[in-house]
């Protein structure tokens, strides 16, 4: 059990194990996303209030979930990298930052597209929208810092510190934005979420959420493996790998 985790921490082992996991995650993601999307977009009943426009939640909600949890993962792997000096954690952090930013953008974009027919406006300074926007800025900060520092090890550590500082700040930001919003425009617009969702809508949504997570797992494994090859390009095993044409010997 422990030796498995031990091995997983080494880039070379992760490259192998990740390569074995990758097709399964990709397959699961493909099946779940197609099932969830078809069910949600075609067969789930239309909302009695919003008609068909609500169907964008099947993309919006999973994207928003991932946007938040990826930042959490980044901070945790940053801490692991700083404390135990695991190179793999550094690589993971670098690999997923743009993915997290993309999901945050996707959540904001789908929210705007949904807001136009429902609220009649693309953007509202709603507490949730604003804190997602700030989350996007935090991602941009990590990516900018990563790009600015040439030495890969130093860049990873610096990003780890920034991700941890960001993680401490996220609850404070969220809380203060909620406060600010209620201060200025008390509940003029609310995300019309029903606490009790009909199962016909809830099940495809859950399928989509799991599918998005599988998709993220596949993408992050691919990107982390790429990062491993890039960083370990001077080691013997990568050279051997390249010489055999990418097939594992």
């Amino acid at each position, binding site marked *: 059990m422990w030796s498995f985790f031990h091995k997983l921490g080494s880039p070379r082992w992760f490259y192998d194990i990740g390569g074995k996991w990758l097709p399964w995650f990709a397959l699961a993601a493909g099946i779940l996303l197609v099932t969830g999307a078809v069910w949600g977009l075609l067969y789930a009943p239309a909302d009695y209030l919003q008609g068909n426009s609500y169907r964008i939640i099947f993309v919006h909600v999973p994207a928003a979930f991932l946007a938040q949890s990826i930042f959490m993962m980044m901070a945790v792997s940053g801490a692991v990298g*700083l404390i135990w000096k695991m190179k793999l954690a550094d690589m993971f952090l670098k690999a997923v930052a743009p993915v997290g930013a993309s999901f945050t953008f996707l959540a904001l974009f789908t929210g705007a597209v949904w807001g136009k027919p429902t609220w009649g406006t693309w953007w509202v300074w709603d507490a949730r929208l604003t804190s997602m926007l*700030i989350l996007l*800025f*935090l991602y*941009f*900060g990590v990516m*900018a*810092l990563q790009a*600015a*520092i040439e*030495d890969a*090890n*130093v860049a990873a*550590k*610096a990003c780890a*510190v*920034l991700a*941890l*500082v*960001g993680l*401490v*700040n996220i609850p*404070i*930001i969220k*809380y*203060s*934005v909620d*406060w*600010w919003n209620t*201060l200025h425009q008390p509940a003029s617009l609310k995300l019309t979420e029903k606490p009790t969702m009909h199962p016909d809508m809830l099940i495809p949504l859950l399928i989509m959420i799991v599918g998005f997570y599988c998709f993220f797992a596949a993408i992050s494994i691919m990107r982390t493996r790429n990062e491993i090859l890039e960083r370990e390009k001077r080691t013997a095993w990568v050279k051997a790998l390249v010489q055999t044409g990418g097939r594992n010997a």
Partner: protein
Amino acid sequence: MTVIKKSGPDAGMIATLIAVLKRDLTIAYRRKQDLANPLVFFIIAVSLFPLGVSPDKSFLQEAGAGVVWVAALLATLLSLDGLFKSDFDDGSLEQYVLCPQPLFLVVLGKVIAHWLVTGLPLLLLSPVLGVMMFLSGEQIKVLFVTLLLGTPVLSLLGAIGAALTVGLRSGGVLISLLILPLYIPVLIFGTGTVNAAVSGVSTLGFLSILGAMLALALALSPIATAAALRISMSN
């Protein structure tokens, strides 16, 4: 009983803090123009709003506190670039990292010095700008108190960004990108307190939260800054 020695490798915590503070204040005193620059920026930035948006009294009264806060925030941000820069360039930062006293203490001393030479002058100038923005006496008083609690937080958080980017070519713009999102809670509560005062709500709760942010930043940010400095120095 611990004996506080005045200097050298055995210097106590307080003595170290005071030594760093004294050194940075002396350096700041000898470069007076650098001290004035953020202040001038502060005044110019505030006076852009009546020119750019509206000199209308009712608008300025409503937006004034926010404008002063945003300008103070940007002025602090601009001054942060130099926080560790000269020490990094002349090698004294390396000596700080090597010295036996904890690095966060040195950082704390430098941040306090930074606040004394940029935050404090901004604070003292803010009533004048408040009058220019037609704020009432009560608003100006509250604005002053929020800046008193808020500007140290700006210096403390900004030090993390300055430490992460020290030694990088594109330092200045990068700091803004890293630090501005973290400034948002301070800004919200800073201006929120003034707005609460206008609408007659008790400001005590807001001020307590600002105080809590200051306490949290004071406790955690020197540690994060010290870690960031060590990382930057290993580059």
